[in-house]
């Protein structure tokens, strides 16, 4: 049935599409014998065929062939560098691989990002790569992964950087729930890194958990300035400029959708406030365990970022100060966001201090409250002080301090069982003796 219908659609479509436009409708109506659904079906196809768009006009074969070629050309081949001894692959990106290597002369571990040899002549790719090196090396801060060097060896471009042993924030989020004190600690450190970058006139543009490493000792490093770009700000002295040729083309979206700011999705001019937005998404995710803007497809997510106001789950709703900080990060209007990154850093530090020492009373002014003129005095947010003893209790439990009780309960039947064993053994021995005596006499 369905196939026949399709055959009819095909026949009518093919006959009507060659007719002059004004004659089509009447033809379709009569050819379909008044079947309204069928008429609608064919007419909508005709309307689509009339569109003079570029849909399917350029085959993607070439793109596929390029992907094939670059994948084949030993992306994972170990480069033969005199200065570095490759140890293992740490991971791969779109077209580069990151190796853990040993700097032979300085005898230290480094992470080396290497482009495949096939891209040694791809000027745009190399510019982008170089830009990442320049941007990251312009920032000297303990929370930003150091760049040791950039160059070409063995016909491959490489970027050597500080190797940080730890987990990415993404891995951490997957592994366990991050408690709020730790989350605030991480957030403070990220904000410091962003402060340093913004001070140097560099926007990261791709702040997300995958780009944040939490070292085993708790030190946070922001990496991957591959998308970074300088921005122009009036009255800013340290404005470095990078190649304008690397500007994203209009309509070209790069980065991960979930962490993109509304202006980034729209393809508008970006400044440091895009990082403040992305940071807000990361902070939200750390505290709530899920992202503020979710959707099945990336278009759904984008639509939410542009149109829907974020909501807070209970974990965040109970912390009014965090809500204020997040509201100032996730304001869709850039002008309503933090005006400067140090303000954000300050608010985070104060709140982190408060969370770490809940008994203390602080007097401070929150930048997030600047407009309302509100000040938190003797700040003692409801809920926290009550919650903390319980948290301590839980920690103790987790540490096994309360663990003795169940053991005793389990211990009892065990002891009784042992007793029975002894009685049985004694009985068997007794019977054995009797039998022995009986045999002997």
């Amino acid at each position, binding site marked *: 049935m369905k196939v026949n219908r*399709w055959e009819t659609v*095909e026949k009518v*479509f*093919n006959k009507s*599409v060659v007719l002059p436009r004004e004659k089509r409708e009447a033809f379709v109506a009569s050819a379909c014998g008044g079947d309204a659904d069928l008429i609608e079906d064919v007419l*909508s*196809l005709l309307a*689509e*065929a009339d*569109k003079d*768009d570029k*849909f*399917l006009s350029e*085959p*993607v*074969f*070439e*793109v*596929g*062939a*390029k*992907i*094939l*070629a*670059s994948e*084949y*050309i030993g992306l994972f081949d170990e480069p033969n560098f005199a200065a570095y001894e490759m140890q293992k*692959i*740490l*991971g*791969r*990106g*779109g*077209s*580069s691989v*990151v190796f853990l290597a040993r700097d032979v002369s300085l005898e230290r571990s480094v992470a080396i990002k290497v482009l495949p040899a*096939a891209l040694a002549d*791809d000027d*745009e*790719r190399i510019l*982008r*790569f170089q830009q990442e090196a320049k941007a990251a090396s312009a920032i000297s801060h303990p929370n930003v992964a150091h760049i040791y060097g950039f160059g070409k060896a063995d016909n491959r471009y490489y970027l050597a950087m500080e190797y*940080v042993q730890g987990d*990415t924030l993404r*891995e951490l989020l997957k592994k366990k729930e991050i408690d709020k004190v730790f989350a605030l600690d991480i957030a403070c450190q990220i904000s410091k890194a962003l402060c340093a970058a913004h001070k140097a006139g560099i926007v990261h543009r*791709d702040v997300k958990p*995958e780009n944040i*490493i939490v070292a085993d000792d708790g030190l946070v490093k922001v990496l*991957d300035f*591959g998308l970074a770009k300088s921005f122009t700000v009036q009255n800013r002295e340290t404005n470095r400029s990078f190649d304008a040729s690397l500007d994203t083309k209009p*309509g*070209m*979206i*790069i980065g*991960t*959708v979930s962490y993109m700011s509304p202006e980034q999705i729209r393809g508008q001019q970006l400044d440091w406030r895009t990082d403040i937005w992305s940071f807000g998404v990361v902070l939200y995710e750390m505290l709530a365990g899920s992202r503020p803007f979710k959707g099945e497809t*990336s*278009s*759904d997510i984008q*639509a939410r970022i542009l149109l829907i106001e974020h909501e807070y789950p209970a974990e965040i709703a109970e912390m009014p100060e965090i809500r204020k900080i997040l509201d100032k990060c996730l304001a869709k209007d850039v002008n309503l966001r933090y005006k400067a990154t140090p303000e954000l850093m300050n608010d985070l530090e104060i709140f982190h201090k408060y969370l770490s020492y809940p008994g203390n009373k602080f007097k401070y002014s929150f930048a997030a409250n600047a407009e309302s003129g509100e000040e938190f005095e003797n700040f003692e947010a409801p809920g926290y002080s009550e919650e903390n003893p319980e948290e301590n209790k839980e920690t103790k439990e987790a540490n096994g301090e309360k663990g003795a009780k169940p053991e005793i309960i389990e211990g009892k039947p065990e002891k009784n069982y042992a007793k029975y064993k002894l009685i049985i053994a004694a009985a068997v021995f007794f019977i054995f003796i009797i039998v022995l005596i009986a045999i002997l006499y």
Partner: protein
Amino acid sequence: MTDRQNITELLAAWSDGDRTSLENLMPLVEQELRKIAHNYMRRENPNHTLQTTALINEAYIELNNQHSVNWQNRKHFFAISAQIMRRILLKHARDRTCAKRGGKFAHVSLEDVTVLTHEKSVELIALDEALERLSQLDPLKCTIVEMRYFGGLSVEEIGKVLDFAPVTIGVHWRLAKAWLGREINGANQMVH
């Protein structure tokens, strides 16, 4: 090598209607395509664009000569090649949009930008889903779209491969394009 025997056997099985042999055949053809694409990139001037049919043709000749494979007809080969391309592109498109990347430093999210933009990736995924539905409705049209869009063949070449007049291919193409466009735009209307 065993590859040679494999390809011959698999191809024969596939021609006899054994669908599962296609799954085993594809990686072998893919390997050949990769090798040739690689050689092209090496040999040619980097700015030189890869000639579509040159690549597939060369792969076809290679497989015919070196592996003594007797392809029943070129149709099989071109259909397989186009499907391989579709799969490879789709995988990359998915990688780009999902950004599912593991590993400590494995997040060089932007460097494949020049190869496949985010926009293009989203479009490819939507197209793939629509093609899946088209293949249920009209497998021939699906093959034609695959060959033209993913395989990069011209209408004339597709005509030769499928043994149809180019005009006929053009007629199929026109309806397939309109149908796919309607499917994809219909889905987009909800978002925009």
